[in-house]
């Protein structure tokens, strides 16, 4: 009896204790490298890139430390860093894969102009002949210098009467095409990219972002008075943050300054691929919008959407966006599917404090941090190389090899959707439709599945055409035959001769 009482008391205590225990919050350590699956769930992934080295001012052997560098351009094996705070441009070369050495420091040029130095240079582009195009932000001009730093010409504020006369021309980012036409982004100009012909004449704006607005705002504005309207935010296109001319001559442009909700619901395209006439031709076949992080809640002191501050495009059409907000890099393939996402804010190698610019040398990535004043060099890991190999092999028409490479990728990361779809696409090209369907179904790729199924169905019908015809004939003929037989039987049964006999 006493024993029983003790047992009851202990169980009551146990229940009481259960209430006291606050379950430890199982905050999962977020992985450095990840990807989103079909459902938008974060799936940890092996790293696609690893830090090769981080180059600070002292690593580069600079006597004056870099100050607020903001531009990074790779041309061949040369790296140009725009050291904006020190009004100079640092040209580095890469003698071995792990090193960067300062080649020369560009801080002035010769020529028949009043100011032969830079003031806050923010970006640089180099043409095929070696001419430099430099966004000389503080001097309100874009300079064109030849390869020996002699002044050739300058591009100044566009002669366009829609622009405010008081606006000071502040070119921030620029790029050039093969015919030396200049495209640049300038602070305060939201009509698109400013385009100049090779002879320096302004030839218009291309690729303005489309204006997004809420219909409630629109109605609200209809009822507002003139004074109230003046105080409201006006519906204007957002300015681009950065641009990149890819190897096909299309301009990748990105912006971070869109509204969070517009980014989330896909009405603001933060990444665009602009053709010559200014239309956006970016392919968006992925399961999710090309917006970087899908989850914009407050985490680790950072909130809001990813802020794409720079973009670069590799030769295999994978483009990589640099998120200033959470210090991450997002790679997308030519179909708009996420290939990788990695990075973070912090002081360790491979983390950033204020990433400003990204460019690539082959498949290696260089990221410039304007607060750390350092360049981080990323090289593809085994996993990343396999993914690139598989994509390259597929593009070269080596479908079987591509499939095998994707299988290796799948063995390293079973949660990697692109691997399954890659295997499926390779099987589809090898005309193994039924197997391909299985892979597409696993990752909910409806379009590719339909392609495979259409072929599979056609094959099946062709193989079984004899059986199908026999079954169809049977369905039609057997009831007919039975009907005929019954009619005949009825006729015989009721025939006069038999009835007479029966009598």
């Amino acid at each position, binding site marked *: 009896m006493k024993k029983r009482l003790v047992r009851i008391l202990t169980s009551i205590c146990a229940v009481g204790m259960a*209430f006291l225990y606050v379950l430890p919050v199982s905050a999962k350590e977020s992985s450095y490298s990840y990807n989103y699956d079909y*459902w938008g769930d974060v799936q940890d992934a092996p790293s696609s890139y690893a830090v090769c080295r981080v180059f600070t001012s002292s690593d580069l052997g600079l006597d004056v430390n870099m100050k607020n560098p903001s531009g990074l351009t790779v041309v061949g094996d040369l790296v140009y860093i725009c050291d904006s705070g020190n009004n100079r441009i640092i040209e580095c070369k890469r003698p071995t894969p792990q090193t960067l050495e300062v080649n020369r420091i560009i801080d002035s040029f010769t020529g028949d102009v009043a100011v032969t130095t830079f003031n806050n240079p923010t970006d640089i582009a180099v043409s095929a002949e070696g001419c430099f195009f430099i966004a000389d932000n503080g001097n309100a001009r874009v300079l064109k210098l030849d390869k020996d730093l002699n002044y050739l010409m300058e591009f100044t504020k566009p002669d366009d009467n829609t622009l405010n006369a008081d606006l000071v021309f502040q070119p921030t980012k620029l790029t050039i095409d093969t015919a030396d036409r200049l495209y640049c982004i300038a602070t305060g100009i939201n009509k698109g990219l400013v385009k100049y012909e090779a002879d320096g004449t302004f030839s218009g704006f291309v690729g303005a972002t489309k204006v997004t607005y809420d219909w409630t705002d629109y109605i609200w504005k209809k009822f507002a008075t003139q004074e109230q309207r003046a105080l409201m935010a006006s519906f204007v296109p957002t300015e681009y943050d950065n641009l990149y001319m890819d190897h096909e001559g299309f301009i990748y442009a990105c912006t971070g300054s869109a509204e969070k909700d517009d980014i989330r619901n896909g009405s603001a395209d933060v990444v665009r691929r602009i053709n010559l006439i200014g239309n956006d031709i970016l392919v968006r076949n992925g399961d999710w919008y090309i917006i970087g992080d899908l989850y914009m809640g407050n985490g680790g002191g950072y909130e809001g959407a990813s802020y794409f501050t720079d973009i670069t495009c590799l030769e295999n059409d994978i483009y990589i966006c640099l998120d200033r907000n959470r210090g991450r890099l997002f790679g997308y393939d030519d179909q708009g599917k996420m290939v990788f996402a990695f990075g973070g804010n912090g002081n360790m190698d491979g983390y950033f404090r204020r990433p400003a610019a990204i460019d690539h040398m082959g498949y290696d990535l260089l990221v410039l941090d304007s607060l750390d004043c350092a360049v981080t060099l990323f090289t593809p890991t085994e996993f990343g190389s396999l993914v690139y190999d598989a994509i390259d092999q597929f593009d070269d028409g080596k479908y079987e090899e591509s499939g095998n490479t994707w299988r290796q990728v799948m063995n390293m990361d079973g949660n990697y959707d692109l691997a399954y779809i890659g295997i499926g696409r390779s099987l589809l090209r090898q005309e193994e439709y039924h197997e391909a369907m299985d892979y597409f179904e696993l990752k*909910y790729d*409806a*379009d590719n*599945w339909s*392609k495979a199924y259409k072929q599979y*169905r056609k094959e099946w019908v062709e193989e079984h055409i004899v059986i199908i015809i026999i079954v169809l004939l049977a369905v039609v003929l057997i009831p007919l035959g039975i009907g005929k037989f019954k009619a005949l039987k009825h006729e015989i049964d009721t025939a006069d001769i038999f009835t007479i006999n029966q009598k």
Partner: protein
Amino acid sequence: MFAAFTKKESIHKYIDSLKFALYCMSHPLDGFWDLTHEKRGTYAAANTILILTLMVRIMRLRYTSFLFVQVYWEDLNIFLYLASILFPLALWVVGNWALTTLFDGKGRLGQVYMATCYGLAPYPLFGFPMMIFSNFVTVEEGAFYSVLSVFSLIYAAILVVVAMGQIHEYSASKNILFTVATLFAMLVMIFILMIFFSMISQGVAYFISLGKEMLFRM
């Protein structure tokens, strides 16, 4: 429901009443009038149609092609999923009966339930073949599937509304008025249930925190 099957006669009656659902689908006005007034319907058949509806609803999750139905299995609660039919059905039946009984409705609670279940018949009847059919089409041909599945839902909804009018002996305009009123009554019931449950949970939370406080001080 199955105990009655011991007699051959009642099996015959059951099969007959189940077949009558098909007649109701093709001749809704006549069919639903006879359902109660000529006692052509049985509860056994109504239950069967409801169970078939629930089964088709669950089976379509697994056996429909992934082109049309993608299921996040991790979050699927099969009982909640069943409740997504059963709960509105219960609200509809109770709400409709409670309103119409005040306004000359001739149907009793059981009859409202029976007629509603008979009205659901198009859902399993179309849904099951559609589910199989979905596995033999591509994305481009998927429009057939979408149109037919929407059609079956609209068909079922029209049948339910017509059924209510017939068993309560309402005119068309009165029937539509009470359909809208029933929908409103469902909302009111949901509202009351929500208040009820939030009050209960707050009451429980009060005693739990009281208990915690006592244990802290012990």
